[in-house]
């Protein structure tokens, strides 16, 4: 793991405008954010305020209309497609709001996915890491199931295991407990807290749960694309 004085993620003057034929949506407006190494940050805000958009910018899945996103102090624009893919693979683990599991792959294969794009790992290594990640989310007994055979909560946990499998420096989680019952939600929250505490994993989590947000180190509130407090 490389260390540097620069923050893991730095967003400067971010503006994100979605342009469709008829309407223009300002999804994010003048966002300035610094996420330090090892921080656990939560993002709250009403539906449609730009939380997912913000997360996908941090996850290097999208580019801002204006402003810069910098990873370890280096602006993302300066990276090639290949380098970006490498960053996404090594540095970032993404938990999507709607899981986005691959329905044609069994649970274990889904969890192995980020490792598949990592050169130099043997099939056995991948399998072991994926199994360990599934164990952490309590799904060891479901490795050969297909996503369609799982409940919403179980799918969410597979999605979390997939993000954990690659042991990334940063985990970006979009409402990771949104579909879980409160007990399971607590467990996942504890898991994330543990990762943050023991491995120093930087975590940015979107949540609707005030109680969970209070357990994190910092809370960012969004409203209509802008930061409020």
């Amino acid at each position: 793991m490389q260390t540097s004085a620069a923050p893991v993620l730095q967003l400067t003057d971010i503006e994100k405008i979605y342009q469709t034929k008829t309407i223009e949506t300002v999804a994010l407006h003048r966002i300035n954010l610094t996420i330090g190494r090892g921080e656990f940050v939560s993002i709250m805000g009403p539906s449609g305020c730009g939380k997912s958009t913000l997360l996908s910018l941090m996850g290097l899945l999208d580019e801002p209309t204006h402003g810069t996103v910098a990873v370890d102090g280096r602006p993302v624009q300066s990276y090639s497609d290949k380098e970006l893919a490498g960053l996404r693979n090594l540095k970032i683990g993404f938990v999507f709001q709607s899981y986005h599991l691959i329905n044609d792959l069994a649970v274990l294969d889904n969890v192995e996915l980020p490792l598949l794009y990592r050169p130099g790992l043997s099939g056995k290594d991948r399998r072991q890491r994926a199994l360990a990640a599934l164990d952490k989310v309590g799904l060891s007994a479901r490795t050969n199931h297909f996503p369609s055979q799982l409940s919403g909560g179980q799918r969410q946990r597979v999605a979390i295991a997939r993000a954990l499998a690659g042991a990334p420096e940063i985990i970006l989680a979009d409402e990771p407990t949104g579909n879980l019952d409160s007990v399971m939600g607590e467990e996942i929250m504890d898991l994330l807290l543990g990762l943050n505490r023991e491995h120093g994993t930087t975590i940015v989590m979107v949540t609707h749960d005030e109680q969970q947000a209070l357990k994190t180190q910092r809370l960012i509130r969004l409203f209509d694309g802008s930061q409020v407090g």
Partner: protein
Amino acid sequence: MIRHLFTLVWNRRRANFLLITEMFLAFVVLFVVGSLLAYYQRNYRTPLGFAYAQVWRVDLDPGTQPQAGRLATVRQVMARLRALPGVVSVGRTSSNTPFSGSFNNTDVGAGKEGKGATRASGFYVEDDLREVFQVPLVAGRWFGRRDDGAALPPAVLTRDLAEQLFPRQSPLGQVVLRSDEQFRVVGVAERFRSDGDLEALRPVFLMRVSPQDTALGEASTLLLRVRPGAGALLERQMRTETLAIAKGWNVGITTLAKQRAAQLKEALTPIGALVLVCVFLVVNVALGLFGVLWQAINQRRAELGVRRAMGATAGGISKQVVGEVLVLTTFGLLLGLLVAVQFPLLGAFDVPAGVYFTAMAAAAAGLYALAVGCALYPSQLAAGIQPAVALREE
């Protein structure tokens, strides 16, 4: 990654079933047509075993002319033709001349009892046809005057016939039996593919016609070697000279080169039609494949977006799409090979196994080329998917 692709294709087998079936059928079509083409190509490339370029054929038909003296007339005509400056040599033959489309099947066996009789193409030639055909002999000699007084009529065999009848011994001087008539083998020729360029090599049994022989029947077929550059002028000359002797006969003159071209054209026409049908089928498969892939890419945008988010490069995505198609193709190909390999195993159609293996290799290469060709554009589409956009849909 390859293992992952197989897993993916296997898990999507229901969706992929149609594509695999199409690939299978495309392979079978390519294989069948490929076998046919490989077979003809192989035959075409086998030397004919005789020269035909400056060989002309003259048909003399007495029609209603009196029976007596016909052979004498023919001999006179031959002498006159031989005397023409444009003609090198002349000889009589049976009417199944090369490229004529007619042949004379006959069974030939070894020894007086005709052991191990085998099917051959029978052919009558006069001594002078050696100069006309310029058949290289691998052993023994061609027919000649000294055969006039022989106890048994002489025969020249092609090498394949000689080896079948007399394995591991010299055929020269041996007796062979053909339709209850005994012959003595005097020579062995490499081959004599008078059936035509596209027909398979087969055993040939050459028999001598002596100058006085009337065995060839009423009508006489002559073959002539002419000098290079001979053309319409010589043809006119030949006709006039012939009719001056054989008054009232019908005379037909053509060249073996012309007959060969006509025969090739006739044989190639149905092959061309078949190839056209094959091309049509393959184009259909290609269009279907292209459409299905295009649709599949659109249905799998979220999946491809996830892969991008997990660290796949754009190039990696396009490789995956092509890879999946190659895996599908391989499944179709394996099914197809299962069918195709039966042909050489069962020795179908008496075609050498090499022809089938050549066709399999060519069909496999064609199938992969088709697959890659159809996958290229969809794979570019897939590579262009923006993960953030793809992951918001649904």
